[in-house]
Structures are given as structure tokens and as C-alpha cells.
């Protein structure tokens, strides 16, 4: 609510009527079946990445590197997409691409995890810096070995052949099979963190890692596994985006979803099931943001302002939640 008000003030300050803008934004997000389908397309990577982030945020391991893990997943899976015969069976190829994407993201996530575990190197800083490194690795491939000679100098790879594209699951939309991945991942992560010993141990690590150590929990092993899962999932999101939506590797593969997913995970209060709803809402704001940028020339940055303001409101509001619990306890 506060987020929307701040967004309105920002829009109004530039002389655009915020109500018209919001109406258009909502129309662009949920106003037609096409708009709704675009919202779901945007929500897909957010669902996938956020579910993975929850895994590590639960243990207070600050993986800010989904951006880079996503890019690495996209690069690894492109290797198979660009280097296999067009006659390979789609099932085989897509499976290989998925696995490659997971490995790419997981490896990229294990670097900061190991650095943190061995030398206590601050993971916020390392995961973030690796985001930029990943971006330049992508640039290297796009301006170098993987640039399509027929792209007239644009940093684009060859178009993926149809067997390297995730199938569209709803005709006349861009909704692809990635959303199925998303739902499965959400359910699996939910079960892991709420119903398994591993998930419980990770929560203990997040609450108090000294106590966790005394309780005989293997922090080293758990953190490595959780980060590999979190990064692997981000990598898979990168794979689904290039295979399901973009159909090639290029510079604009929307790695910013890696940051947006952090917002989604927090707004969902680190609950994987809630991610499904929040991701669709945020996906709606993003899709609506593109819409108002196109029809009203409202810069897309407004989406960042709205999303961050919502997050500010949530962070600021947590104190009231804490106080209510205190109050109950005292009675």
C-alpha cells in the first residue's frame, strides 16, 4: 500500500496522472487474457529463483548472487543448445540443458559458500561481485565465440533449434513448460524446509549457529548443499528463460530477476507456497510496467521504485509484528 503511494507520488512528480498510470499498469498486468499470460511468463523465473533463495535465506546465508547464478545457468545450458545436432531428441536435449543449467548455477554459488565456510569471507560482497563477473563472462561469449556471424555485429547467438526450446503449454501465449518446473520446485522446497530434518537443521543454523554447532549439526555440509540447491535453481531459471522465452543467448536475458526474486522471497515471508502468489503479483507489476512504458512512456524504473517501497514498508512493519508477539507473551 505504502509502496503504491510512493510510486504514485513519483509518477505525479513528472506530471503524469498516477491514477491513469496505475489503471494502465493493472490492465497491462491482469486486464486481459494476454496480459495475464504475460504476467505468468514474468512470474515463472521469479517463482523458480525465489523458491531457491528461501532455502538459504532460512539459514541467514545472504545469497545476493542469483543474478550471476542465473547467467551461468544460461551460459552452461546454451553450450548444449548451440552444439548439438538439430535431430537430437527434444527430451534428451532439454534434460541435458536443464542439468547443465543447474550445474552452472550451483558451481557459481559454491564459490562464495566455500569462501564463507573456510575463511568467513562476507557472502553479500562475494555473491554480488560475482554477479558482475558473470555478466562480463556472458559479454565475452556474446561478443566472442558464440556470436552469430549473421547477427550483423549484434551480441546475439544463433537461434536455438526447436528441439532446444521448452514447449509452450498454452496455445497463443508465451507460457512455457518452465512454470511447471516452478510449481514442482516450490512444492519440493516446501517439503524440504518444513518436513525434513535437513530443513529443520538449517532453520536452527539461521537462528543461532553456535547452538547449531553444539547440537552436532554439520554447518559446513548443510550450507554447501543449500547453496548448491539455491544456485542450481537460479541456474535452472536462466535455462528456462532462454529456452522457453528468448530462444537464444543474448545480453538481455533478464538477469535482474535475480534481484527481484529477493524481494519476492521476503514479501512471501520466506514461505515457498506464498511465493506462488507474490511472484504473480510482482510479475504483474513488471508486466504492467512494460505495458505503461510502451503506451504511456512512463520509464520502467518506476517498477523498481514501487517494488522497493513495498519492501521498505514490509521491513519497517516487522517491528509491529514482533511487538504483538511480545505483548501476547507478557499476558
Amino acid at each position: 500500500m505504502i509502496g503504491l503511494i510512493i510510486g504514485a507520488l513519483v509518477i505525479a512528480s513528472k506530471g503524469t496522472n498516477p491514477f491513469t498510470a496505475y489503471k494502465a499498469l493493472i490492465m497491462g498486468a491482469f486486464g486481459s487474457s494476454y496480459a495475464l499470460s504475460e504476467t505468468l511468463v514474468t512470474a515463472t523465473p521469479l517463482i523458480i529463483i525465489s523458491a531457491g533463495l528461501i532455502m538459504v535465506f532460512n539459514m541467514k546465508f545472504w545469497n545476493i548472487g542469483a543474478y550471476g547464478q542465473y547467467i551461468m545457468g544460461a551460459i552452461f545450458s546454451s553450450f548444449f543448445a548451440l552444439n548439438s545436432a538439430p535431430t537430437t531428441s527434444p527430451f534428451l536435449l532439454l534434460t541435458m540443458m536443464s542439468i547443465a543449467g543447474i550445474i552452472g548455477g550451483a558451481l557459481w554459488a559454491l564459490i562464495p559458500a566455500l569462501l564463507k565456510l573456510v575463511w568467513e569471507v562476507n557472502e553479500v560482497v562475494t555473491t554480488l561481485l560475482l554477479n558482475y563477473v558473470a555478466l562480463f563472462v556472458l559479454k565475452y561469449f556474446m561478443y566472442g565465440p558464440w556470436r552469430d556471424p549473421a547477427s550483423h555485429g549484434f551480441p546475439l547467438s544463433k537461434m536455438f533449434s526447436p528441439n532446444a526450446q521448452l514447449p509452450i503449454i498454452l496455445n497463443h501465449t508465451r507460457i512455457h513448460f518452465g512454470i511447471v518446473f516452478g510449481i514442482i520446485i516450490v512444492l519440493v522446497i516446501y517439503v524440504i524446509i518444513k518436513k525434513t530434518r535437513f530443513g529443520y537443521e538449517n532453520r536452527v543454523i539461521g537462528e543461532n549457529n553456535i547452538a547449531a554447532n553444539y547440537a552436532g549439526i554439520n554447518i559446513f555440509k548443510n550450507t554447501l548443499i543449500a547453496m548448491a540447491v539455491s544456485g542450481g535453481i537460479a541456474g535452472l531459471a536462466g535455462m528456462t528463460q532462454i529456452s522457453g522465452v528468448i530462444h537464444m543467448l543474448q545480453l538481455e536475458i533478464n538477469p535482474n530477476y535475480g534481484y527481484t526474486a529477493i524481494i519476492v522471497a521476503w514479501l512471501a515471508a520466506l514461505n515457498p507456497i506464498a511465493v506462488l502468489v507474490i511472484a504473480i503479483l510482482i510479475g504483474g507489476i513488471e508486466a504492467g510496467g512494460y505495458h505503461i512504458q510502451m503506451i504511456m512512456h512512463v520509464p520502467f524504473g518506476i517498477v523498481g521504485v514501487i517494488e522497493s517501497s513495498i519492501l521498505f514498508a514490509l521491513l519497517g512493519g516487522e517491528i509491529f509484528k514482533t511487538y504483538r508477539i511480545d505483548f501476547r507473551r507478557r499476558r
Partner: protein
Amino acid sequence: MTEQSSILVTLSASAVRSGTILLFPTLGEIITERSGVINLGIEGMMIIGALFGFITGNLTHSPYIGFLVGMLAGGLTSLIHAFISITLRGNQIVSGLALTIFGLGLTNFFGQDWINKKFTIPVSSIAIPGLSKIPVIGPVLFNQDIFVYFSYILVVFMWFVLFKTRTGIHLRALGENAQAAGAMGVEVNKSRYWWTFFGGLMAGAGGAYLTLVYAPFWLDGITAGRGWIAVALVIFAMWNPLYAVIGAYLFGGIDSVQFQLQASGTTIPSSLLNMQPYLMTFIVVIAATIVLRKRHIGTPRELGIPYSREEK
């Protein structure tokens, strides 16, 4: 002077200017973190300072007013973080990230009409009489613009305040043990507000220096992760303003060397050259952390922990 050494001097002088962009926010964050608040929103505050400093500079035709407004814009932005993390005791890590997303979004929104516009008023270098005549060091350090000199003064001043004054003792106490600081009569939250605001001013200064002097033009996302490099440099500097200088100029140096290499038409792909500042920061942070551990110099002990008087 031979040709090689004059190239080296030019390169070093440009390294100092590039480093100054990082030096301001690093200094600011050192002070903020010393007071027990971690603000990861430097990138966001920097880019807000960069845009609003740039716009003001263009409207007033004064780089100085632009710089001040840029600083102030960064400072005001930091108050959002201060309010959430100090008053409302929200999660500081996430709040800082949100601040960065906020800054990038806001500047994309307001910067649309300014993209690729230039700031055409040059800020001239002032040679300091005497000092600028020292071979090598003179032209590198003492033939710079007024903002660079301002950063020198700040470094010494902040070092002095931090380690040689009562204010400094209180400031450090805030980050090490807020309860004790409170008992000493320091108004914990009020002081933390001021130091967080100071960090914001400095981040804004770094951003404004980038768009008014160093670049000087506006591009969407022009800070390009420099705010995060500054966060890393705080660790490298072991929370000491004097070491911040070394870190900032080192990275200024890497930046200007890779820039010169590109300009000279090397065959190394530009993507790999552009990667260097981030890769080097990554490596240096690891090295610095290992050294810190060996020497048992740590993060301010209560960094990121909010303070409330009733919790005893």
C-alpha cells in the same frame, strides 16, 4: 621526463580521479559501519547523488552546487535506511538492497530525459604551489581538482576524528557495544542517524563526482557496481580511513589501466578487461579477510544489530 614516465604520471593522475569516486563512499561507509549500522545501499545512494548532482549542475551551470546537491540527495536517501534499520529495527541487509533497487529505479525514471547529455563545464585542476613541483608525486597528487583535495582533507579529518577525539571514541563504542555507549551518555540512535546520514552524503558525493567531473555525462546505471566495490573496500581498509585511500586508488588504477588498454586498441576482449575491477575486488576481499582473521581484527562487533533501550 621520458615518454614512458609521463604516460605513467598521466595514468596515475587519472587513477586518483577514478579512485576518488570510490574514496568518498568508502569513507562514508567506514563511518556508518563503525557506528554499528551496515548500509548496503551505497550503489543506490551513489546513483541518486550522481543523477541529481548532474541535473542540478546542468541547471545551475555550477559543478559546485551540483556536487553539494548530489551529496545531499545521497544523504536524504540514506535516511530511509536509517529510519527502517534504526527506528523500526528492520533487517538491515535487505533494507540496503532495497535501497539500491530503489535508487536504480528512481534514477532510471527521472534520468530518462538526460541520457547521453553531457556536463560541459570543466572543473579545472589547481596546482598546489610547491607540492605540485615534487617529481612524480606532485603532478599525480597535487595537480588535481578541488573535489580531490576535499577528499584528502576528509581522509585526514575522519581519521583524526575517529581515533583522536572523544566523538571518535563514542562513535566506535556505538559499533562495538551500544549498551556501554548508551551508559556513557551517548544517544545511540540519534548518533547512528547522523553517521548513517554522513555515509549517505559521502555516497552522494562519489556519485556526483562521477557524473560532474569524471565522466562527465549521464547514463542509466552509470555507477555500474562501484557502490558494491566500495562496500568491499571497507573490508579491505579494515574500517580505517587511511587504508581506504590505498584501496580506492588501487582500484582507480585498475580502472584507468583497463580503460587505457582498450583505448590503445589491444586484442584482449573488452569484456575481460571490464571484468577486472570486479574480479580484483573479489580476490582482494578474500585476501583481506584472511589477513584480518590472522590478526584478529574484526568487523565492528555489533554491526547490524539494532539498539533499543529496554532490551537489557
